[in-house]
């Protein structure tokens, strides 16, 4: 069972990397830009939308809502191209620098000459980047909540918390995918190219899967994110789930359930992380 010897190095690495990010002009500038962009969009979206107490989306192309309620505002936020897809792509592009950047500038060798296992270093590097993504999501959410509050829209704390967790998991999946790509090559340009291809690939994956074999659509990160969100309220459903429902409207197939959505989101974080650990442990860190 993992103990202090596993977690302490991991947290040491994450701490030193996070400190480095915090003092890096490039990282801070990028994060501020992404956060401001997302928050601006969120605020703008709220200002042009009306969410009266009986608001209902009914069918917005992604979700179907049976009963009214102001929490549907969050579904509107979630379906925006600037939240789910942008954060996923941002996560991938942030993730591709996890190993290749410190490898290129030499600090990876410095870190790895200390008595830390390869696994601890890899997971620590990944963790520091996940913290950055969590920071962006937290800021975006805070801006959204403040704007919603000023506009008189009240959001349920439970739904809001679920939204933050699933959005963070969604973006974390992107970071994990980017991180595994980061272990495949030593040249930053090649790895960033992989990252762009992966970001585009993941965005079209849902459409391809759904068109070829509908139930498999849930394995796409964006669909899984929507399915998981739909599980936050008993009268919310994703249209993807409705397409898999039986004649009585019940969500029968396990791959269309909320649990499946949450599991898929977790899998997009865990599986690339495990693959990345294996790839990083087997590789050389020579000059």
């Amino acid at each position, binding site marked *: 069972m993992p103990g202090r010897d596993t977690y*302490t*190095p991991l947290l*040491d690495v994450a701490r*030193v990397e996070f*400190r*480095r990010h915090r*003092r*890096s002009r490039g990282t801070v500038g990028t994060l501020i830009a992404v956060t401001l962009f997302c928050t601006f969009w969120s605020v703008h979206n709220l200002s042009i939308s009306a969410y009266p107490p009986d608001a209902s989306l009914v069918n917005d192309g992604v979700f179907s809502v049976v009963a009214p309620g102001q929490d549907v505002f969050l579904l509107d936020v979630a379906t925006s191209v600037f939240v789910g897809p942008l954060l996923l792509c941002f996560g991938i592009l942030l993730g591709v620098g996890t190993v290749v950047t410190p490898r290129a*500038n*030499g*600090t990876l*060798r*410095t870190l*790895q*000459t*200390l*008595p*830390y*296992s390869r696994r601890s270093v890899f997971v620590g590097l990944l963790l520091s980047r996940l913290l950055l993504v969590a920071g962006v999501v937290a800021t975006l959410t805070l801006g959204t909540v403040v704007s919603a509050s000023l506009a008189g829209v009240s959001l349920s704390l439970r739904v809001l918390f679920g939204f933050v967790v699933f959005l963070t998991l969604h973006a974390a999946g992107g970071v994990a995918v980017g991180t595994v790509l980061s272990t495949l090559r030593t040249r930053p340009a090649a790895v960033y190219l992989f990252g762009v291809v992966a970001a585009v690939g993941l965005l079209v994956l849902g459409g391809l899967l759904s068109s070829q074999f509908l139930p498999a659509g849930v394995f796409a990160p964006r669909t899984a994110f929507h399915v998981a969100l739909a599980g936050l309220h008993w009268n919310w459903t994703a249209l993807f789930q409705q397409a898999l429902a039986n004649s009585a409207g019940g969500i029968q197939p396990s791959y269309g359930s909320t649990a499946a959505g949450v599991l898929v989101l977790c899998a997009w974080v865990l599986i690339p992380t495990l693959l990345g650990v294996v790839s990083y442990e*087997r590789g*050389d*860190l*020579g*000059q």
Partner: protein
Amino acid sequence: MSYTADGHTPAVVADNFTKQFGTVTAVDGLELTVPAGSVYGLLGPNGAGKSTTIDALVGLVQPTEGTIRVLGMDVRASAVDIRRKTGILPDGFTPYEQLTGREHLELAGRANGVDVHTGDVLARVGLTDAADRTAGGYSRGMCQRLGLAMALVGQPDLLVLDEPGAGLDPHGIELLRRIVREERARGATVLLSTHQLAQVEAVCDVVGIVDEGQLVAEDDVETLRRTVGAEATLRIRPTGPLEPAGDLLTDVDGVAEVTVADDALVVRCVDEQRTAGVIAALERSDVALESYEKALPGLEQVFGAYTDER
């Protein structure tokens, strides 16, 4: 496991260590034993396989074939335990630009599970004034000193220094030599990889010469000198003209060649003992001497002999 004659486990044992990068063989069947408590100099031209060997010793690269044991532990199975007992200054050490020198030492201390008196360690490498400056503003030599300081944290049993003199000024070089001697006196083993011959000559007990990924010679400096010939050279400045002295010395027993360079006679003797006969011959004659100096074969010649002939 193999043991040295005095019963100590060697600090490093490489057995048939081979490393290939794609189609390129960087190290080819290297057999290397670094005695515990010694200062071992790994010498070789650029691209000889020194840094690859050093990287493999500390688990940065994986051997393609063969085994490496460091401090009695297999590097594949116990890389973290090895690094816990080993201070490492890697080739081209790069600090975090955003962290201060003190923060680097705190990181090394946490990694090794020891409390570090950062001020003392930084003072030891001459970085007291830069302790709280971020390393992004350090010169190459200062970075090297910081890397050395990190390697010294925790009083390691083995100190592995890869091109430690790179970027150091003469004061830094002298400091490095002093630290190496102090660490040896403390009981640590020092493995020094370099292509700077003076560095090796100054501090190393044993020298291993690596070329094209193989160990081509290994011994102490004196023995290696003898293996490439015992020739000694005298540079003589007579008070008078050079020609009579030169003519005289040509016939002295043991003199191989007499030439003139920079207003001095350069007398090449077949061995060191014959140089006394040359000086005695001059003293017996009417040639007065302004000065003379003797030069024995240096590591340059040893290095050249072992690496050129391959």
